[in-house]
């Protein structure tokens, strides 16, 4: 963010790109907030101390991986199993980084580590949609950091509120559903083509059938078969 800021009307500056990223994340705030709150509550209710829960939230910044690890930690599962489960739940981020790395490859190593750490589902979908609409948008790195940092701040605030109010928020409210519904709203616009629709249906069915496979490997299987189905439909349609 050291580039000079110009004030020409309509010109994209690093600052305006950063603010636009933050602004385009904001419609998702109720989902992010509810999900962070629920994750904070769940960590403390599973037996983590307030300190441990706060440190875990700040370091890992991974809602679904944290939630997946909690029952294992409560059962004193081996550390390698806890780690592997978190890796499996986070594997979609590997794919996200494959699909976005060319936009960030020119940055220094330290910045790349930070932007990787800050990736979330919402900002990934926003970022790729924006690049598709505006392939020559300048300062895309600032746009990304604007949304990703806004997401991080919202998440950490809500998570820490959850940690400190865990005993007063009943789980019967079902607040965690708001997080899942955010993903629904993210997924709907992606389903605009037949290959994606086929992949989504296959991934959904497999994820339900393979729900009880340990280490969340069913998730991995569902993604792999979904991608294969989508690709097969794409090939079948483009074949003469």
């Amino acid at each position, binding site marked *: 963010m050291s580039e000079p800021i110009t004030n020409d009307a309509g010109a994209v500056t690093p600052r305006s790109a950063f603010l636009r990223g933050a602004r385009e994340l904001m419609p998702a705030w109720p989902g992010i907030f509810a999900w962070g709150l629920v994750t904070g509550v769940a960590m403390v209710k599973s037996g983590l101390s307030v300190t441990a829960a706060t440190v875990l939230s700040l370091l890992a910044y991974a809602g679904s991986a944290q939630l997946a690890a909690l029952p294992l930690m409560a059962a004193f599962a081996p550390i390698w199993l806890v780690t592997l489960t978190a890796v499996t739940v986070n594997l979609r981020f590997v794919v996200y*980084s494959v699909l976005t790395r060319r936009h*960030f490859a020119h940055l220094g190593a330290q910045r790349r580590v930070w932007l990787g750490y800050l990736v979330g589902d919402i900002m990934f979908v926003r970022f790729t949609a924006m690049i598709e609409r505006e392939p020559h948008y300048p300062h895309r790195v600032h746009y990304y950091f604007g949304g990703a940092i806004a997401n991080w701040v919202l998440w950490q605030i809500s998570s820490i509120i959850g940690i400190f109010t865990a005993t007063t928020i009943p789980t019967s409210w079902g607040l965690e559903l708001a997080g899942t519904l955010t993903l*629904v709203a*993210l997924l709907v616009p992606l389903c605009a083509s037949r290959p994606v629709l086929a992949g989504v249906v296959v991934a959904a069915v497999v994820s339900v059938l393979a729900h009880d496979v340990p280490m969340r490997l069913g998730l991995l299987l569902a993604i792999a078969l979904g991608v294969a189905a989508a690709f097969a439909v794409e090939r079948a349609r483009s074949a003469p």
Partner: protein
Amino acid sequence: MIEPYVWWAILGITFATFLSRSSLHLLGNRLQIPPTLESALRYAPACALAAILVPDLVFAGGQLDLSLDNPRWLAGIVSAVIFAANRSMIASISGGMAVFWLIRAVHGG
């Protein structure tokens, strides 16, 4: 939970975060992926979202439950319809939550 165990577990989960999110960014363009695979991977984000959220909606207490005792799946459908109709995330999330709470209140869940 016992203290040293908890800290080792937190370290493990943090390691998982960095491994999955940042390691490929560190390789950058040095990582070569076959173009066919990279083009197929365009479908992975949508598949991953579906594989994460669908079980969340249809399982209750470890059991597949598509009755009104588990209104989450219905809330998911309502959310999707609202979003498809007016592209508003806030309307979609709050509409789904409203349906969820309403059915639970009426159905006595």
